[in-house]
Structure formats: structure tokens, C-alpha cells
């Protein structure tokens, strides 16, 4: 064997040695490959709900929820809670003996500190604003008791501080943060969750290791959990095939291929509503979409079943209520009856346009962009533009990235132009919080509706303490949004997560931005 051949053979042996598939190792590791980590901060006060999937392993919430989003006295640091008769004092009873990863015991001081931190001006969490408005005081009568005093009677406090919403309910260690500072905490966070922080390389991965025993999970099944950031889907799937990752988010179009190859694909059913709206002008809606008939016509022009099949590979269901999030429907007793569904009826759409004096159609701008979890964004924009073209509405597609569109939207610089979003599905309180920003005139910045009747009903929800009346208000809001066609609800998409063949049973649940990966760690 000459020297060149020897070198080649040796090189191949070295590579084979270093490249052996990970599935050969003992499976005490759980590795999750995701296309986006959102902001990649590990400090709950510095990001909102879209980083919950990794933070939920490191931190416990004050109020726990079941994977289907129901408040649970078993799942959070509060073992029970009650409200005063006037609904202005909420008392939370905390578990005793729960320890942070640094060994200190969790008390009501930590909960108070965490909540104040989540409401601070520095906080960028999803619902810091409403909590600032609502909370008057936080009392700590005992280490295992916390009282939240609100300015107005309300029902929403437990839900706002639960795992079903954002990160405001995550409990952080007061002493550790005060001793080490916010920056140190953001680099090496400490919580009470089943996994403790090991390492974060921004743009690459977040590693955690199991605590010896956790009050909720017991001894975690996996010694280490790693979240890998892998933007390219082909790479995520290759990693899955090689056994280097156990869970990967995949696009809807690759589901059948993966299932055929024996990889279980877990669906988060109706995870997001693909919702289209028109940007408002400084004084509200502008012609021609200030005419209800035009808005209805644009709804009727779209074949939702075809979009569900052709753009989303059949993993989507037609939607009927503008801004209506289906996980909230059951909470408030709202039923989408067949007459509420938008039929695909281009002839009637044309007639409505003619009735509105637009028989010759009109021109509108459609912003085309992709979003995390919505890789089909641009194809979707092209599809709806195509449907509208058929009824004489010419759509100028403007390819941008989302921040550029959002600037147009919140600055109201492109009135009447069309945008869209994959709005994460959520329970009734989350749906209310979403409507309160995007469908409520006083919120100004994000409003897309500008309807005094909707404003009136939404303004009552927060102050209402009778759950039946809240449900009725929410139902009426949905009915009004539908009857006025305040947007174009297109489909609810299912989000697929492919798993390794050895992962076993996993219920990714139906809670906004939470994959309940900690349930996999339960033995």
C-alpha cells in the first residue's frame, strides 16, 4: 500500500470514528432541533411567550396548566388560590420546600419580586402592560402566601400568571438576581424547573441538565436536554434520520415522506390562525375596504379548502371568524355554525363589488413575507392575490421581511394594504388579550378593526367578574367581527413536529408556544 492510499484509508477511518451516529449512544439525552429560537434570551422578562418552549423546562409558573390548557393545581408553584368577594384580592398558597437550582428555597418574596420584574419598564414580555394597569399591590403575608391586589375587580389574574399565557408567571430567584445582577442572571439563569441551565451559545444551542428530583416530574428521564437551532429544514431532517435529534419542527409538505419512513409526526392541531387584514389609516379604515361589502367580497373570493390542500398540504382547516381563535371557542361557548363559514363564491363576490360601485375592481398592495412557523408565507400571499385577481381586484405583491411590513402597519403608512400573520392559537384569556391589542381602537398601534361596537364590548371584558357575562361578551365580539368581515380568516394550520422512532408517547399539548417537553421527561 503506497503512502497516498494509507493516508486516504486512515482519514476515512478517523472520519468514520468521529461520525458514528449518535443513536449508538445510550439515550439519556433529549435533543430538539428547531428552526427558530425567537429572541434567544433565557431571562423570562426579556422576551414574551414565543420563548416558552425552552424556558418552561428551567422555570416553574405560579399557576400550572394541563397540556390542554386547563388551570391545574398540580402543575404550578401555587397549590391553590382564591379570590375575595369583590374580586380585587387574589390569594395564592405556595408549595413548601421547592428549591431553586442554587439551593435556596422559593418563597412568596420570590414570586412578588418576579412579578414586579415582569411588570417593570425593562420588561418586554407579552402582557406586562395589562398587568401594570391592573395590579395595585402585591402582599406577602407569609413565606407560603401571596396576595395580589387589583385596581379593578377581575377574573383574569390566575390565567395571566399561568403557563397558558406568557412568561410573567415564571418564578425567579430574588436573592440570586439581587446578588448577581440582571446581566449575570441573563447569562446563567436559575429557576425551580426540572432542568437547570448549563450553557447557551447564541445562534447554536441551549443545554440543560436534570435536577436530582423535581417536585412535579420526580427524577427526570433524560439527564440532559439540548435545544439546537437549525434554520434549514433539510438539515433538521438529516439530523433526525441520523439519530442526532429526537424532535424537529418540520414543514407540512415533508410530513408524508417522514411518516412513510417510519418517523412519528406529532401535530399541534390548529396551532395558528392564518389571518389577513387591511392596514388602517390614521383615522381608521380607508376606501374601498371601509365598505363592508368590499370586505365580504374579498372573503368570498378565497377558496379556503383549496388553500388548505395546495398550500398547506392538507394540514389546515378553513377558518370563519376574523381574529377568532378556535381554542377559545369552547371556553366561551362559541359555536361556528355552517352558516358562518365563508363559501367560495366568486360570482357573489363580484356582485358585491358591483353593488359597492367597484364593478371594474380596484388595486391594492399585498405585502408578502415569511414568518417563523409559516414558511409558506410568500406562496400564501401569491395565492390570495390570485383569488382576488379573479374578481377584478389587482394585487401588487410587495416582497418584504416582516419587520418592514410591521413598520408600515403600526406607522399606518400604507392604509388599505394587506398583511397577514400566523396568530398563535390560545385560550379565551389569550384570545381576549390578542383582540384587546389588534381589534381595539384605544390600543392604536396595532388596531386593525376600528369598530366602536367591538371596542365597547372588549372594554367590558376585563372589568367583568361574572364568567357567564364574559362568555357572552366574547361570543358577541366574535359574532360582530364575522358580520362586519373585519379581516380575512383563511385557515387554521396544524404544526408538525417529527420525532425519532424511539421517542415514545408525547403530547405536545394545545397551549400557546409551549411544547410540554417536560412531560417527556416524566418517567
Amino acid at each position, binding site marked *: 500500500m503506497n503512502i497516498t492510499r494509507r493516508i486516504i484509508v486512515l482519514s476515512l477511518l*478517523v*472520519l468514520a470514528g*468521529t*461520525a458514528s451516529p449518535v443513536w449508538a449512544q445510550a439515550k439519556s439525552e433529549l435533543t430538539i432541533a428547531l428552526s427558530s429560537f425567537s*429572541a*434567544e*434570551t433565557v*431571562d423570562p422578562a*426579556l*422576551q*414574551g*411567550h*414565543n420563548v416558552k418552549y425552552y424556558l418552561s423546562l428551567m422555570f416553574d409558573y405560579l399557576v400550572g396548566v394541563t397540556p390542554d390548557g386547563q388551570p391545574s393545581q398540580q402543575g404550578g408553584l401555587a397549590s391553590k388560590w382564591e379570590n375575595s368577594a369583590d374580586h380585587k384580592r387574589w390569594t395564592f398558597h405556595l408549595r413548601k420546600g421547592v428549591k431553586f437550582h442554587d439551593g435556596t428555597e422559593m418563597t412568596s418574596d420570590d414570586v412578588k419580586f418576579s412579578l414586579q420584574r415582569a411588570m417593570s*419598564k*425593562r420588561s*418586554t*414580555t*407579552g*402582557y*406586562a*402592560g395589562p398587568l401594570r394597569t391592573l395590579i395595585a399591590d402585591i402582599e406577602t403575608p407569609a413565606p407560603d402566601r401571596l396576595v395580589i391586589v387589583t385596581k379593578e375587580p377581575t377574573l383574569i389574574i390566575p390565567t395571566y400568571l399561568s403557563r397558558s399565557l*406568557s412568561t410573567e408567571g415564571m418564578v425567579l430567584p430574588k436573592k440570586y438576581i439581587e446578588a448577581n445582577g440582571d446581566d449575570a442572571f*441573563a*447569562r446563567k439563569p436559575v429557576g425551580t424547573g426540572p432542568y437547570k441551565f448549563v450553557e447557551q*451559545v*447564541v*445562534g*447554536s*444551542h441551549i443545554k440543560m441538565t436534570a435536577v436530582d428530583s423535581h417536585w412535579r416530574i420526580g427524577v427526570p428521564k433524560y439527564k440532559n436536554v439540548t435545544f*439546537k*437551532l*437549525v*434554520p*434549514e429544514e*433539510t*438539515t433538521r*431532517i*438529516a*439530523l433526525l*434520520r*441520523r439519530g*442526532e435529534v429526537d424532535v424537529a419542527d418540520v414543514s407540512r409538505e415533508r410530513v408524508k415522506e417522514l411518516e412513510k419512513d417510519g418517523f412519528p409526526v406529532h401535530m399541534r392541531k390548529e396551532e395558528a390562525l392564518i389571518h389577513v387584514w387591511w392596514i388602517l389609516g390614521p383615522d381608521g379604515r380607508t376606501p374601498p375596504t371601509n365598505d363592508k361589502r368590499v370586505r365580504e367580497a374579498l372573503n368570498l373570493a378565497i377558496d379556503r379548502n383549496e388553500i388548505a390542500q395546495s398550500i398547506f398540504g392538507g394540514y389546515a382547516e378553513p377558518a370563519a371568524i376574523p381574529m377568532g381563535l378556535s381554542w377559545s371557542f369552547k371556553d366561551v361557548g362559541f359555536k361556528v355554525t355552517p352558516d358562518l363559514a365563508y363559501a367560495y363564491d366568486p360570482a357573489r363576490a363580484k356582485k358585491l363589488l358591483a353593488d359597492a360601485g367597484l364593478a371594474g375592481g380596484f388595486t391594492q398592495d399585498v405585502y408578502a413575507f415569511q414568518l417563523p412557523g409559516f414558511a409558506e408565507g410568500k406562496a400564501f400571499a401569491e395565492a390570495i392575490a390570485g383569488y382576488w385577481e379573479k374578481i377584478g381586484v389587482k394585487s401588487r405583491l410587495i416582497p418584504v*421581511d*416582516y*419587520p*418592514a411590513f*410591521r*413598520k408600515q402597519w*403600526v406607522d399606518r403608512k400604507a392604509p388599505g394594504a394587506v398583511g397577514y*400573520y400566523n*396568530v398563535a392559537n390560545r385560550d379565551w384569556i389569550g384570545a381576549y*388579550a*390578542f383582540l*384587546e*391589542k*389588534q381589534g381595539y381602537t384605544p*390600543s*392604536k*398601534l*396595532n388596531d386593525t378593526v376600528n369598530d366602536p361596537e367591538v371596542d365597547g364590548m372588549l372594554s367590558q371584558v376585563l372589568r367583568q367578574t361574572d364568567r357567564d357575562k364574559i362568555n357572552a361578551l366574547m361570543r358577541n365580539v366574535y359574532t360582530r367581527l364575522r358580520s362586519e368581515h373585519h379581516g380575512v380568516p383563511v385557515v387554521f394550520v396544524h404544526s408538525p413536529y417529527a420525532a425519532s422512532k424511539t421517542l415514545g408517547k408525547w403530547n405536545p399539548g394545545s397551549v400557546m408556544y409551549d411544547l410540554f417537553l417536560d412531560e417527556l421527561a416524566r418517567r
Partner: protein
Amino acid sequence: MVRFVLFRLLQSLIALAILSVVVFVLARATGDPLHMILPMNASAEDYANARAYLGLDRPYLQQYLSFVGRAVTGDFGTSIRARRPVIELLQERLPNSLKLAAFAMAVSLAIAFPLGVMAAVHKGTGVDRAAQIVAVLGQSLPTFWVAIVLVEFVSGRLQWLPAGGADGLASYVLPGFTLGWFVVAGMMRLLRSGMLEVLDSEYVKLARLKGVAERRVVWVHALKNALIPVVTFAGIYFAILVTTAIVVETVFAWPGLGRLAYDGITSRDFPVIQAVVLVTAILVAAVNLCVDCVYALIDPRIRYAR
């Protein structure tokens, strides 16, 4: 020589100063980072709070002066998206990019050298044509496509090599090859044409007449003289490999400078964008300066001709 180096250094500093203004202005012209870090339901008050906390409410001139003042001490501020000092992110990423570029360059040299020499020695034969095909493919196949094909087949289907990450030697192979192939093409062509010129020179003919073995004529006498432009090319390309591997780093989930730049741009993370552009520019300027100095040492006419 010292005057020459100082003059080129001054030129580089002026270029960096201009670049700092351009990148500062352009980064802000593309959008507002708060649209990315704040939730969709953020209120005007949330925006105002975040803007004040991040110092984005200050006048642009003040922001620029603060950025430049700190940058000269190596402090590039804090990432708006990751909320960590940018210098820490650079310290994590730059070594990965350097290592990948070094590996890719080694791959390029290992392929381009024998190919270039063989193509010149066997000009017009099948070997030459095969080498030309390798060169053409290297320069014409889109890097993104090559990367995806390698991931899909070599890693996903055949499962020979890791598809992503930077764990161990094996993880360098696919991104290194993808990145290096483009360079192979240029280097191979340069070496081939250099070798053809040298092989036709008088001193090579003399060596042959004197009975020196053909292998020694080609690999020692001729190659040594054909190497000068290739070494220059390799030096400049190394800097380019470090700084332009966005596509390769994205496909192979490689935590390098390119990915940092891409994430910074998509999230309007001004401090990160500014830092990556400046570091890249410093790297390129340093390599260019070194190449200029080497040239000036080799050929004194360059020193006097400036």
C-alpha cells in the same frame, strides 16, 4: 518600507471610519428592531419603554458617537436580540468561522494543487478536461444547492457524515467541502495557467536538458515559481471565506460569523450588524495590508510606485 506600511494603514483607517458611518446609517434605514423583540400585542407604552431602555430614543449623532467611542475600545454594545455584549458573541463565533475557513482552505489546496499541476502537465488531455469540469462546476453550482444536496444525501440518506453543528472533525467535512469547492475552481485555474507559463520557460527547458527527472522538474522547479499568485489568491480568499459563509453556515447550522450577521440583519440588531461589518472590514483590510506588504517586499517597485 515603514512609510509605505504607515500610508496603507492610514488608508485602511479612513476606509473603516467611512464604513462605520455607512453601516450605522444603513442599519437604521432598514427598520425598527423593536418590531422583532416586542410581542405583536405590545402597546405604544411598551415601545417607548423598550426604546428608552435600549438607548434608541437618543439622537442619531449621539448614538453614533457612543458607538464609535466604545468600538475603539472593543466594546460593540449589547445585542438587542440576545441581550448579551456583542463582543461575547463575536468571541464565540469568530473562532468557529476561522476554523471552518481554515479547513475549507486546506480542502481547496489539497484538491486544487494536484488538479492544477496535472491539468497543466497533461494539457489538452482527458485529465485537463476533467480538471476544467471540476473548476466550472465549482464556480457555477450555487453553494446553497450543493449544501442542500450534500445534507440530503450524504448525511440524511447515506448517514455518512453529520448534517450540522460544530462538534468534532467529522462535522467540518460537508461545510468545509461546500465552502472550499468554489475556491478550488479559481485556485486550480490560476495554478494551471501559471504552470503552463513556467513549464514553457527557459530554465525549465534547461533543467530537462540537464536530465533532471520530470517529476522533480514539475513539482519542485516549476511549481515553486507558479505558486506566487496562488498564495496571494489564497490569502485574500481566506478572509473572504471567513466573512462570507452565510449560506453554508445557515444550511449546516454552523455557529459562525456569517450566521451571526444573518440573524443580526433579519432582526435589525444594530449593534450586531455594526460589529460584524466592522470586524469583517478589519479582517479584510488586515489581509490586504499583509498581501500589499508581501508584494512590496518581493517587488520593491510597488513601494516606490505608490
